[in-house]
């Protein structure tokens, strides 16, 4: 080795013949140099080792990093597939959204149409509203007018009441005097009169009594138009029988067949119906006065709504040509000579029936009797 080294150090070897000393010293120099070199090498080696160590460390780190990267990449792969799934789902969603959008558009169009319609409708409603407001205003005015006329009507009604009160009191007093003093004349001074004079006085008395009946009938007529209606269930058959019983009691000598249909009840004002039925039955009683076999019937037509009641007699009847005059005040189709009466009874019946919302009409023929029909509630004939 040392030779190779000596050979190697040619630069220091003299070209002269070998001087041992110089040689030695040259070798020593070389040795010195190589020692130095060796140390440097060792240093270098050491550095390399340390470098290598560093590199190994680095490599570990790199491996760890690689591993981590691999892990990351692994994760990324999973993530990627997941992402793909998600993306697919997204695409699906977008697809769905697209169809949804199309649908929405359709719906929107429909809504727009509806809104348009609505707008139209709204306009219509608005104009209807305006109309309605107009109507309400009109109605208010009408109501106001109604209130006013009601107040006026009440005032008139009060006046009428005072009027009939006065009639009831004051008109009768002179009649009592006319009748009373005529009677006194006949009784106390009868011999002062001849037959004709006594007849005249008799006429005076009859007139006073007739006027008394008129006053009573007029008061009754005005009374049926006044006052409140109180409807209650009333047995009209029973009422008719009771009224007829009174007539029989007043004229027990008369033979009258009475036929009353049972169970005719109605929701009516009892007081008014008593007046109406009394008037109708009184007419029937009166106009059958000249019949040997008088017959009076109270009943109702079968199967008609609203129910049609009737009072029928086989008495004097009336001329059907004058039927429209029957229900007017003071209208008479017979002279007082033939049949007494005030001409107010049927007008009273008419008012009572009208107050119940019903109708009254009559059929008759001279000497063949009369039938008076009436209803007691709203409805057609």
């Amino acid at each position, binding site marked *: 080795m040392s030779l190779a080294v000596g050979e190697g150090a040619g630069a220091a070897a003299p070209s002269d013949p070998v001087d041992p000393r110089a040689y030695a010293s040259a070798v020593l120099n070389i040795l010195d140099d190589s020692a130095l070199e060796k140390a440097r090498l060792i240093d270098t080696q050491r550095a390399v080792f340390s470098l290598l160590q560093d590199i190994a460390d680095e490599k570990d780190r790199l491996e760890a990093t690689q591993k981590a990267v691999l892990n990351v990449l692994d994760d990324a792969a999973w993530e990627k597939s997941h992402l793909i799934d998600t993306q697919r789902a997204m695409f699906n969603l977008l697809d769905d959204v697209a169809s949804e959008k199309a649908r929405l558009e359709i719906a929107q169009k429909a809504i727009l149409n509806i809104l348009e319609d609505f707008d139209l409708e709204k306009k219509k409603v608005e104009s209807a509203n305006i109309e309605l407001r107009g109507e309400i205003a009109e109605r208010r005015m009408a109501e106001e007018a109604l209130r006013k006329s009601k107040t006026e009507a009440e005032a008139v009604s009060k006046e009428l009441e005072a009027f009939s*009160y006065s009639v*009831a009191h004051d008109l009768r*007093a002179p009649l*009592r*005097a006319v009748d009373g*003093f005529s*009677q*006194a004349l006949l009784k106390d001074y009868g011999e002062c009169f001849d037959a004709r004079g006594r007849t005249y006085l008799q006429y005076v008395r009859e007139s006073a009594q007739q006027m*008394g009946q008129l006053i009573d009938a007029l008061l009754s007529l005005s009374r049926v138009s006044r006052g409140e209606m109180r409807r209650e269930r009333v047995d009209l058959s029973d009422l008719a029988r009771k009224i007829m019983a009174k007539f029989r009691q007043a004229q027990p000598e008369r033979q009258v067949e009475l036929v009353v249909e049972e169970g005719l009840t109605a929701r009516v004002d009892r007081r008014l119906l008593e007046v109406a039925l009394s008037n109708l039955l009184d007419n029937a009683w009166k106009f059958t006065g000249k019949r040997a076999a008088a017959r009076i019937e109270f009943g109702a037509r079968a199967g008609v709504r609203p129910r049609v009641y009737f009072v029928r007699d086989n008495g004097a009847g009336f001329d059907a040509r004058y039927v429209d005059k029957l229900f007017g005040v003071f209208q008479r189709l017979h002279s007082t000579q033939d049949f007494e009466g005030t001409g107010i009874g049927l007008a009273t019946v008419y008012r009572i029936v009208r107050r119940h919302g019903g109708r009254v009409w009559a059929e008759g023929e001279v000497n063949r009797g009369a039938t008076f029909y009436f209803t007691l509630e709203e409805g057609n004939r």
Partner: protein
Amino acid sequence: MSEKYILLVEDNRWDEELILRALEINRIANKVVVAHDGAEALEYMFGTGAYDGRDVMDLPTVILMDIKLPKIDGLEVLRRIRADVRTRLVPVAILTSSKEEKDRVVGYAAGANSFVRKPIEFAEFAQAVGVMGLYWLVLNEPPPPVEK
């Protein structure tokens, strides 16, 4: 003092005459005092005015009275008679033209003992007055005299 008599309160002189005639026909000979309006009736009953100093303890057996009277109407007369301890028990029969329900209600409510309508026909009129006279003067037991 204990003589039975009628106080007739009637403003209509024809009716007054007819009532007196009806009493006569029915042989009711009791005394009849006539007052021609409500005020006069009260003066009589309480011994004031034209009747100042009258013995108010000498009460009529019955008062026959119309409702519609001049000055003070029959209902007011009735109320004042009922409100005074001296006169509150005197029988009062209302004899009037009307038979209006309203009159009857307020008449009885004010303390009337009877309510009779004057008929127009004189025979009925005379009968009504006769029946009333006999009832109140003969049949009916009057209230006991008021203690002083």
